[in-house]
Structures are given as structure tokens and as C-alpha cells.
């Protein structure tokens, strides 16, 4: 369960993952996540 919580935290951290990509770059990153944590 802790691992899965870690995955949720990953989702929250995604915007920093590609911080060197311009905010206006025409690309969408979609994360499908468990909705209840």
C-alpha cells in the first residue's frame, strides 16, 4: 500500500519531472491514477 501511495505522490510530482520543457510546449502528459488516495 505504501508503494501505491508512492505512486500517487509521483503523480503530484510530475510537473517537476520535465521542468526543462517550456510551459507553452504543445504536449499533454496524462496520468491515469487511483482516485481515492
Amino acid at each position, binding site marked *: 500500500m505504501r508503494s501505491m501511495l508512492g505512486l500517487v505522490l509521483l503523480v503530484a510530482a510530475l*510537473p517537476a519531472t520535465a521542468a526543462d520543457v517550456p510551459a507553452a510546449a504543445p504536449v*499533454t502528459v496524462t496520468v491515469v491514477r487511483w482516485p481515492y488516495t
Partner: protein
Amino acid sequence: MRYVDENFGASPLAERFGIRHYPAVFVDDVLVARPQDFYGWGSEAPGRYTPWKDAASRERFRSDLRRWVAHRLAGEALEGVAPSDAAPPGPTRLPELELTDVLGGTVDPARLRGRAVVVELWATWCPPCLDTIDWLDRFQREHPDDVVVLGLAVASEADDVRAAAERLAYPVVLADDALVARFGDLLAIPTLYLFAPDGSTAGSFYGAPPDLHERLERALGRVLGAGAEPYAPDLLE
């Protein structure tokens, strides 16, 4: 760059790609990381990003995602070009190839003539590519004489490519930009091209949709003559 959260159970993208667990990550409409890449979900097989608690796993994911985004942005330049003005994205014929694979073997051009040839452009950091590699490996072992599979690894570390190639029944070449360019614009990873025995292009497959293997198998069947209408005079023998 836009980030979108979709809830498992209510995600059109997950539905489209047949995702049955979570999480999954898409860059535009390309599935770049699957649930099993993060977590076993009952399987003992290691995922590309397991164990997630390790910093190295998380850094690998971040690195992969950066590459996917950069790749998609490079491809964006082609969008907006009217089809009539755009060069065909893929080759019309199998290029003449004289190559050395990543294990030091020679890819004999003569072996490519008169056979169906599948060329896959893939990357070690692309989880969906790894499924396709395994599928192609099985296909090559089942059809050793009438199909030649050739892997072209792009933007990948040589050691990682070598490790993958050692278990495969077909050659894998470290592809530089010049080699990739001989197959036209690389719009997606993986990209697969199927060439008929006469060298003409018989199919182009971009990305990794859920039915990729079925579509490729059907196309190979057509190229190899399986499922073709019988030659009527033969039925009279």
C-alpha cells in the same frame, strides 16, 4: 506543457488502450508507461520502474518521460503541414542496407532479398517497445526462413541495447540519425515497417496501439500468402 489527471475507471485514454490497473502515463495519445511498469499487480516480473521506492527507478522514469516529451515535440514540427506538401513519413521500399549489429554480426543484404522484412525502430526506454520486441522475437523463431526481423535502436544507450539484443533471435543495430533518416521521418516510437519479399512497403505501424501485434500479424499473413484465396486451378488437381 499541460498535465492532466484522469481517474482510473473514468479515463477515456485508459479505456482506449485497455488499461486494467493504474497508474498509466500518456504523452499526448501515446502510452508511455503501463501499470506493470510501476508495480507487479500480482506478477513477479520486474517492471521498468520497480521497485518504485528506489531513487534510481524514479530517476529512470523521469529520464524516460523527458525523452518522450522531447520526442513528441520534435514530431510536432510535422503537424500542420498539409499532406500534399509533406514528404511521405515512411519509405516506399526497403533501403539497401549493409549493417553491423550491436553484437558485432553482419546483417547480410542478401538475406533481406526475397523475404518479408520487418524493421522495428524502438528505444530501450520505451516500455511498450519491449512487449513488441518479445512478440517479434517469437515471430522470428516461428518463421525463421520466410521472415527477417531487424531491430533499429534509436536514442538508446549501447549497453542497454546490447543486453536486449543478446536474448533476441534477430539482429539489432544501433541506429544513428543517418540510418534512421533512410526510413523517413520518425514520428513515433515504436515504428514498424513491413516490406514484402519484392522490397515494396507493405505496411507502416506507428506507436503502440493495443492491437498492434494483431494488425502486424494480419499484414504479415497477407504478405506471406496465408489466408489468400486459393488458386482455382489447384483445386481441380
